[in-house]
């Protein structure tokens, strides 16, 4: 209960922020945090059940490229393009997930398969350079005639529109997380992650449970990629697909704590704040430095906080209360001291 009050308070403050004068740069960071939190939460929905995908960049990329290509070449509004993009991501997830789960490809092997998947999508985007602009990337065409606010093209020159959209998506992801956690799907997937044979023997359809959470995660990740594309108004195959972005999703979830609802969000905040401050501190002259320090932080956090930063704090908060709290009920708590 206390936790939900805390969440509600944090949410309200966040929601109110842009109504006041928030410098554009910070609003920009806030939007990025929200979108990456959304993506990290989507990944953790399966990651926390031991279904570790190292290829979520595939879903990120396929959704946003489909949406943008349909807009640029067919003039199809993102309102139709987005469902199509998500549907393509779901199809891809089905193509990789069904055989993998059906034939019991688990653990490291599953991770390796998905690792290749992200890269396949990146290379396909580059190969289709006629429509995607290859490795140079592409820009969604400006809506004609140009306006500041186009709901039709989902193009807004005012960042506050994206802030609200990203906030709503992020809240939606948290609600989905809670819904999964309260359904019988959670214990079923926990059981599957521990022992697939035992789970199956008590009537749990292992393949369909794993597939459903994977589809949910993939679809949400595709939406996250679309949000990034719409917000940045620029698509690049390496920043929206491939290995490095796939791993980044995994890292931010692990650093924050993939077992907790707010873990990935904390991970996104830390990652983005850290990246930005290192970038401004070290500047361009030491461009690789921020990555190295970030990598170091990741290693340290995995070793010392396997449940992530948020998970570690949560464990600390939930630890056994000291015996002194019950002293009031005890007339003579400890005469010797």
């Amino acid at each position, binding site marked *: 209960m206390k936790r939900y009050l805390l969440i509600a308070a944090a949410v309200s403050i966040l929601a109110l922020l842009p109504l006041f004068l928030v410098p554009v740069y910070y609003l920009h960071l806030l939007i990025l945090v929200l979108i990456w939190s959304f993506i990290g939460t989507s990944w953790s929905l399966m990651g926390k059940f031991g279904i570790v995908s190292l290829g979520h960049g595939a879903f990120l990329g396929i959704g946003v490229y489909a949406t943008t290509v349909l807009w640029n070449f067919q003039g199809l509004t993102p309102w139709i393009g987005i469902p199509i993009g998500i549907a393509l991501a779901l199809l891809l997830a089905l193509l990789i997930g069904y055989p993998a789960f059906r034939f019991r490809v688990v653990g490291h092997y599953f991770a390796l398969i998905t690792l290749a998947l992200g890269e396949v999508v990146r290379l396909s985007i580059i190969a289709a350079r006629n429509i995607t602009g290859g490795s140079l990337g592409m820009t969604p065409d400006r809506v004609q005639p140009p306006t500041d606010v186009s709901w039709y093209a989902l193009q807004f020159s005012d960042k506050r529109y994206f802030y609200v959209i990203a906030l709503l998506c992020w809240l939606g992801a948290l609600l989905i997380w809670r819904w999964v956690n309260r359904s*019988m799907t959670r*214990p*079923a997937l*926990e*059981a599957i*992650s*521990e*022992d697939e*044979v*035992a*789970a*199956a*023997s*008590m*009537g*749990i*359809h*292992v393949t369909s449970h794993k597939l459903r959470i994977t589809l949910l995660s993939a679809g949400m990740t595709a939406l996250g990629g679309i949000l990034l594309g719409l917000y940045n108004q620029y698509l690049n195959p390496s920043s929206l697909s491939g290995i490095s972005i796939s791993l980044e999703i995994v890292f931010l979830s692990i650093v924050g704590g993939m077992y907790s609802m707010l873990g990935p969000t904390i991970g996104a905040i830390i990652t983005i704040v850290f990246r930005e401050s290192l970038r401004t501190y070290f500047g361009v002259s030491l461009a690789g430095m921020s990555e190295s320090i970030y990598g170091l932080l990741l290693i340290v956090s995995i070793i010392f906080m396997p449940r992530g930063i948020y998970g570690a704090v949560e464990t600390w908060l939930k630890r056994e209360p000291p015996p002194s709290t019950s002293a009031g009920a005890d007339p003579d708590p400890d005469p010797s001291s």
Partner: protein
Amino acid sequence: MLVVDSISKSFGGFLAVNRVSFEVQEGEILGLIGPNGSGKSTVFNLISGAHKVTGGSIRFEGRNITGLTPDKICHLGIARTFQIPRPFKKLSLLENVTLSAYFGDDALRSPEEARDRARKVLEIIGLPTDDRTEVTTLGAAGLKKLELARALSTQPRLLLADESLGGLDHQEMEQAADTLNHIRTELGITIVWVEHIMGVLMRVVDRVMVLDYGEKIAEGLPKEIANDPKVIEVYLGNQQALA
């Protein structure tokens, strides 16, 4: 009720089960005994769908269930326990049994119904029914009971109990035997009980079948089996098993 027709299982050329046939009658407790490694657990894995048969067929209540997936077979009314308990340690005791009730029995639609069922089963089996007990606090006997509770919560008509009471003391063994008897007489569930020690089992079962090196070597009433020269030979030098 269950008709097993000449099933075989080979693991990379090694025949763990060799053309074994038997029938289980509704309402009986059939004992399945044999030395360690004789293929008893493998027979259970074949019936419950955990392993695919190399040859032969299995029919349950007139329906061919050969090759069906374990979850389907569970839904049809066959539940099994594992010889080495496989509890879900991330879930509490009550959650373990609620889960199997919810997913194992198609008739249960809500988690609340499943939890009620789980509590009832835990009570019958003699385990705590609160929602705090962690499975990690259970001892060997407790974990065996949990296996049984999970299987029963799926509302089976046939129970495959891979008991192997080896790790239990005498009193716990007697108790386990009584529990199985109770499950049959009070709940009307047909049972196949696997065990490699004959003693306690003989008191409760209606019929016994003996496996050795993956082959059926004898089948009959407990009295007949105890005096069967082939069975005695198999168990010779293993006095403890005959006790």
